[in-house]
């Protein structure tokens, strides 16, 4: 592996793992507010549907 390749993998992986820490606000939100699965799923379904615009 080239130096540039090694540098890029060492940068990308920690970032991706750090991103996973964003699970915590979701956990806290659903724990502190009395969220129900169905309304959350409906709101998320609309967001996902809109996000997928233009997917081939």
């Amino acid at each position, binding site marked *: 592996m080239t130096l540039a390749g090694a540098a890029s993998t060492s940068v990308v992986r920690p970032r991706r793992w750090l991103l996973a820490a964003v699970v915590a606000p979701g956990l806290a939100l659903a724990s502190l507010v009395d969220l129900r699965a*169905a309304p959350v799923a409906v709101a998320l379904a609309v967001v996902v549907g809109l996000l997928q615009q233009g997917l081939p």
Partner: protein
Amino acid sequence: MATRARGTGRSSLGVPMIVLTATAAAAGAAVFAVIAAAGAAFPSVSRGLFAAAASLALIAAAARGPRPWQRDAETPTEWLEREGLTVAVRNGLALGAGFLTRVGFWIWWVLPVLAFESGSVQAGAIVGAAYGAARLGASSFVAARAEATRSDRLPRKLLLWRPRATAAADPLFFIASGVALALAARLVGFDGWR
């Protein structure tokens, strides 16, 4: 797609777009109702354990890379060679079901987890219908508006927003997974963090 679905004899895009959106909503409703029915078949503790395991597996997989689990398939070209409402029906069903073509983002996978957790066939059907209608309804609206105004301003504007939306998809996935995980813990009976 809607243009092909219109066929040669019709002038309005309205009918194919309504058919496209309605079939997508119906397909989504059917798929997610089945998933929710599967959830309903389990007592809440096992449902919560399954959902927690699925959420953790998703979080671990998404933390490893941005490419989601998906069937890497496009709309079959032979469908696009046909004209008429059959195109709208087939595409609506395939895209509304979600997993039959590319899902594009990890966040799609949180939907079946939440539908499973709900344990309500009715809720699952509403989730799926909302997904299918949003996915195909939005693109139909944009296409109809572009044709009505004879301007591609709106599609161009949306294209400019696309990179920002794509960048937001992953953080949103992890937040939504956190919500799914907390809801699973509640199903299991864990309420210790209140």
